[in-house]
């Protein structure tokens, strides 16, 4: 039993990482809008969907014209991102800005509007797809280059196992120390001690299970997963650069901190809010294309679940915080994959894969009990 769990661990975490990157990119849209407007833009899941569907249409339309799949993917990412960005800007212009201009102070009003917009967009896309193709399930075409599978060297797996086990022992040691301190008077153990104890236990563990850990772990990765990781990393890096190194980024951060003061400094908050929706929408759209590339089937209702998960990831990381959204996405993706794969084994089939979200959300609640501000969301001053 434990052997299987150990052997699967690197593959599970890898799949979780890939899923996590998609969540992270959607979560950024939630967190940025929250940062500048303190609005939870529930329509963001539909902006993601619009990108996914636009990407699928691009693939299907241009498949015959462009032979190079990588060029095709680049185009799909650009068009999917652009469509999503346009939808996001329109939503802000037509639905949220009028509310803001009327000076609505009740924060529930924009929230309900967002939910309404979300339904509207779902059925709008369904209508367009229905009129266009008389069907609204769109499939991403498959390309041999993207489906190609590569074996990963074993040391990556060994390293993953070692790190995970170490982390597990660290948490155990932390709570062990806490338990001991309940009964015996002793000073709190330092992080360094905990790390060393965990490292020692990890070495023992690796030695005991050497026949599994150092055997063939069979880690494989597909080209499209690699692409997803590369594109996501590029996007995250680009966003980081944009927010911290450009004038626009400075303006966004200024509006997030204090819109009124920012407008005294010659920044038009409306323009900045619009740009924020553009950036968030673009990232959401790209995430949609990557999601479609990974999991094939997209339709007007595809956004709901990833949207909710990404929102959760944003809260988990600390809503309003960009790094937090990325970290939250990765953590949630891995938790979900761990739950989905391991619950069946651990409960001997009593709880199947369908309970994965319950497990993920239980851990979420647990983390938020200890860190209500999210994993990274400590500085309240800088929201974006």
């Amino acid at each position: 039993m434990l052997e299987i769990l150990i052997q699967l661990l690197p593959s599970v975490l890898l799949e979780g990482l890939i899923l996590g990157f998609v969540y992270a990119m959607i979560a950024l849209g939630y967190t940025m809008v929250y940062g500048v407007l303190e609005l939870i833009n529930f329509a963001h899941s539909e902006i993601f969907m619009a990108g996914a569907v636009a990407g699928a249409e691009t693939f299907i339309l241009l498949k015959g014209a462009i032979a190079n799949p990588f060029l095709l993917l680049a185009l799909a990412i650009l068009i999917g991102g652009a469509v999503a960005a346009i939808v996001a800007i329109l939503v802000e212009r037509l639905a949220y800005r009028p509310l803001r201009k009327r000076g609505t102070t009740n924060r529930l009003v924009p929230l309900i509007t967002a939910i309404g917009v979300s339904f509207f967009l779902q059925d709008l896309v369904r209508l367009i797809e229905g009129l266009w193709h008389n069907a609204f399930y769109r499939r991403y075409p498959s390309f041999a280059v993207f489906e190609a599978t590569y074996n990963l060297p074993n040391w990556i797996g060994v390293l993953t196992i070692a790190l995970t086990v170490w982390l597990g022992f660290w948490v155990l040691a932390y709570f062990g120390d806490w338990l001991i301190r309940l009964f015996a008077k002793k000073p709190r153990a330092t992080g360094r001690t905990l790390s060393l104890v965990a490292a020692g236990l990890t070495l023992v563990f690796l030695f005991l299970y050497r026949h599994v850990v150092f055997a063939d772990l069979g880690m494989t990765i597909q080209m499209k997963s690699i692409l997803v990781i590369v594109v996501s990393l590029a996007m995250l890096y680009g966003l980081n650069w944009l927010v911290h190194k450009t004038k626009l980024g400075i303006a966004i951060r200024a509006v997030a901190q204090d819109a009124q003061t920012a407008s005294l400094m010659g920044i038009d908050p409306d323009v900045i809010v619009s740009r924020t929706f553009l950036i968030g929408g673009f990232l959401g759209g790209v995430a949609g294309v990557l999601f479609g590339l990974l999991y094939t089937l997209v339709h007007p209702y595809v956004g709901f679940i990833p949207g909710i998960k990404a929102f959760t990831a944003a809260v988990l990381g600390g809503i309003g915080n960009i790094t937090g959204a990325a970290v939250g996405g990765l953590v949630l993706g891995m938790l979900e994959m761990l739950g989905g794969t391991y619950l069946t084994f651990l409960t001997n089939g009593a709880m199947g894969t369908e309970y994965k979200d319950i497990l993920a959300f239980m851990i979420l609640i647990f983390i938020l009990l200890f860190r209500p501000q999210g994993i990274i969301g400590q500085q309240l001053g800088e929201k974006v």
Partner: protein
Amino acid sequence: MKKALLALALAFGASALAQGNVIKIATVSPLSGEQAALGEMIKLGAQLAVEEAQPEFEKLGFKLELAPQDDQANPDVGVAVARRLVTDPEIVAIVGHLNTGVAIPSSEVYKDYQLAMVSPANTGPAVTDRCYLNVNRLVGRDDVQGPAGAEFAVKELGAKRIFIVHDKTTYGQGVAEQFKKKAEELGAQVVGFVGTEEKANFQALILQMKAKKPDFVYFGGIYHQAGVLLKQMRERGIKATFMGPDGLDSSKFVEIAGEAAKGAYYTTVAGPIEKYPKAKAMAEKFEKKFGKKPESFAIYAYDSANVVIKALKDFVAYAKRPPTRAELSMLIRQTTLEGVTGHVAFDYKGDRKKADYFVIHLKEAKYPGEVVKVISFPAPATKCEAIK
């Protein structure tokens, strides 16, 4: 039989509903919308049967007519149509519906008027499990597809380690559980039984498969999940044989799964017409008359209408009057027929005593596949929960 008829005629004689000499059989199926192609086949199949029988009824002094109705594959519309039909005294029986979800609420209306319904297409167990006297069906049941599939998987394909996935719906989980039971009975090992509502990302399931190393994967559910699951399984190098129930019986399944669909199996309750040698003459007549080949449920609708017609004819020839609805409902339940789809006889709850199940193999990634096996299975003797 004749005595029974006479007794019935006497018992209900006074309350004969239709006093005129027009007798109508209604078909109710989607004639507009996405499923119109399937619905039209039900209408045309019944129409052929009715038109063939018209001369005989004329000799008896009655005019037999068909009243085709459109339920738009929508439960609300189906119930509205049913409410209208029960008020027309000339309508004595229904051939329909196409969708189980429409048939169930509509038949609640028919039941109140004891109006007979013979379904050519509904596979949901609940259609007959309510044990209504007036509801019968000619096709097999979803919950027998599981055992039929299991028998084929274990005996013919030699499945030993089976991983079962289902979609947690009444249909999908029901089929999957029945499959599991039968497969275990036949000595195969079920290494996994997992439900999922996931539509996009099946990696967690696939990792479990990697660990359990099944040689056979059964999916209880509909093509939009099955197609994606199968595609991702093949991408991750799981080579186990794939099988599912008639939820996979759609060109969309192949469209979604792409090349991965090659080699997959599914079971279905409606066989292609070539598998019924007796249907050849009927098919020729059908094509001559309507200018198209009978497809999907056309032959079942033809037999459904013929069961009704046979019961009607027997009654009318004796009583010299149209039957009341209750009389006809009781008669249809007892009627047997050598139809184009084989011997038709109903059990105590309205299921066909022995229905055919077809195993279909997608030899290429192209829909439809090829029938590799026809399995005849008796309807299960489920308990009637409440006989109303």
